[in-house]
């Protein structure tokens, strides 16, 4: 088996590095003037706070079809990921790393060694082969025991492989890459050219909720129209994000909304209320699709520790008439069956996450005037309440 090779990046070294790289929780930074300077002392005496806000002023492009904002500038991508874990590379599992991985794979193929992904595949295939061998040996042992019982003799049991003693057989091992031709100087040159020619086709993708939080909440992101590259005003962004969930699908952003389409139960508003709630409390909020939930809450970020909480967004209509007239079929708006809830709870308990039901109250259109929907101020009328779900087993949980 491939043993874990310690490097200077393992364990404590990597933790310290992560603490340095991911030191800032948000893209905007605060710079404090030196405490001893005269101007600072004067300001402090007068009660003036002269801390400066350093804004990175990132840019992103709205993409209506994928309901997201794309960030392509490498500096902006790095800032948004390292300061708050915003966004995800669309060809990667977290931060955009597709180009680096492709180049690495090319180098590994030329240099005759395995990439870490290939090592992982090899380990998994070996484990699969071990399980097949073990299953076969167990079946043989059962058949032998049966036959011996029928014939009235002692069973001669075959050896059942265990994890410690099993070795992969020689012919089942996959051939090492680059076995046939050793790398030559020409191959190195060709490979360098290929690396340079390889266009980075990956971008970082922000959900509409992340983009709006950065743009309106922190004012550190400018969103551009995909066709004109003009920066959008807050009013245009506010309308186009709601229209991204519109009834009439479109591939272009729409900047006007009719009064009938402007509703409190627009999926963008409902989900944004919950996103903003947890982000403003300091949680790092990411997508929860891998665990059957809507959101995952991380205390510091995905690189530090697994998510502690999985959040299900459950919209609650203050006025049932709004639900009947709604063109949007909001998920989880109807009472949930016990089996479904149990399933989700089970999935999350298996991965040691606590399930949180976040009930979002959608204001009644008869109580709140319609014009509040023209600005983000309408978010004041939404409330989020949490119910934490844990399975209680009376026989085992006595303390």
């Amino acid at each position, binding site marked *: 088996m491939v043993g874990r090779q310690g490097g200077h990046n393992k364990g404590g070294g990597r933790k310290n590095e992560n603490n340095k790289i991911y030191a800032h929780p948000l893209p905007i930074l605060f710079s404090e003037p030196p405490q001893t300077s005269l101007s600072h002392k004067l300001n402090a005496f007068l009660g003036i706070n002269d801390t400066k806000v350093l804004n990175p002023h990132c840019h992103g492009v709205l993409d209506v079809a*994928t309901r*997201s904002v794309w960030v392509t500038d490498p500096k902006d991508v790095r800032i948004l990921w390292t300061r708050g874990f915003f966004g995800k590379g*669309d060809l990667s599992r977290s931060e955009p790393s597709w180009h680096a991985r492709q180049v690495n794979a090319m180098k590994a193929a030329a240099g005759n060694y395995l990439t870490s992904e290939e090592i992982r595949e090899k380990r998994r295939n070996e484990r699969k082969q071990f*399980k097949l061998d073990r299953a076969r040996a167990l079946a043989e042992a059962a058949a032998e025991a049966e036959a011996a019982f029928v014939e009235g003799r002692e069973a001669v049991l075959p050896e059942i492989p265990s994890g410690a003693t099993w070795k992969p057989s020689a012919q089942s091992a996959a051939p090492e890459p680059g076995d046939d031709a050793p790398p030559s100087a020409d191959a190195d040159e060709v490979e360098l050219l290929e690396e340079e020619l390889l266009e980075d086709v990956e971008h970082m993708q*922000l959900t509409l909720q992340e983009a709006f939080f950065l743009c309106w909440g922190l004012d550190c992101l400018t969103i551009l129209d995909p066709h004109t590259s003009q920066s959008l005003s807050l009013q245009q962004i506010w309308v186009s994000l709601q229209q991204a969930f519109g009834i009439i699908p479109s591939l272009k952003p729409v900047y006007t909304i009719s009064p009938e389409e402007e509703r409190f139960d627009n999926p963008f508003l409902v989900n944004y209320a919950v996103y903003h709630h947890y982000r403003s409390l300091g949680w790092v909020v990411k997508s929860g*699709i891998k665990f059957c939930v809507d959101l995952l809450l991380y205390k510091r970020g995905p690189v530090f520790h697994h998510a502690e909480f999985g959040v299900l967004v459950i919209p609650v209509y203050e006025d049932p008439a709004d639900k009947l007239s709604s063109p949007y079929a909001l998920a989880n708006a109807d009472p949930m069956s016990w089996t479904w809830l149990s399933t989700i709870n089970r999935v999350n308990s298996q991965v040691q996450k606590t399930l949180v039901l976040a009930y979002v109250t959608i204001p009644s259109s008869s109580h709140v005037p319609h014009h509040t929907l023209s600005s983000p101020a309408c978010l004041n009328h939404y409330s989020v309440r949490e119910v934490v779900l844990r399975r209680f087993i009376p026989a085992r949980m006595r303390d």
Partner: protein
Amino acid sequence: MESHPSYKALSEVLPKYPQSAGSCFQTFNDITLAQQWTDVEVIDLPVISRCAFRGRRPKMDPLLYVVPCSLAESLSVSWFNEAFEKLGKPDQVYLAINTPDSSIVYYKLTPGIVKPPV
């Protein structure tokens, strides 16, 4: 999206089905660039208002089918049945469930019960 290199291969089907354009585009990118499938073809399936994909996984021979959809959609068994019919009744089809943060979760669907391998 229109300026992305992958758009050319999808330029006929994406404007035809704007509702599923995002998930088709994301799935195509993931299959061709991230998962590195080969011989990828785009199949137009008007009956379920989207395109599907057929290709080969790296180092594997059989032709596999992928049908994209988005998390927000509500799908029915008859929807799957029609997709299976129009794709020529393959043994299995991968359903690619897309999310706005670009995560894709693949599920393998078969038309009937399948026994586990061992």
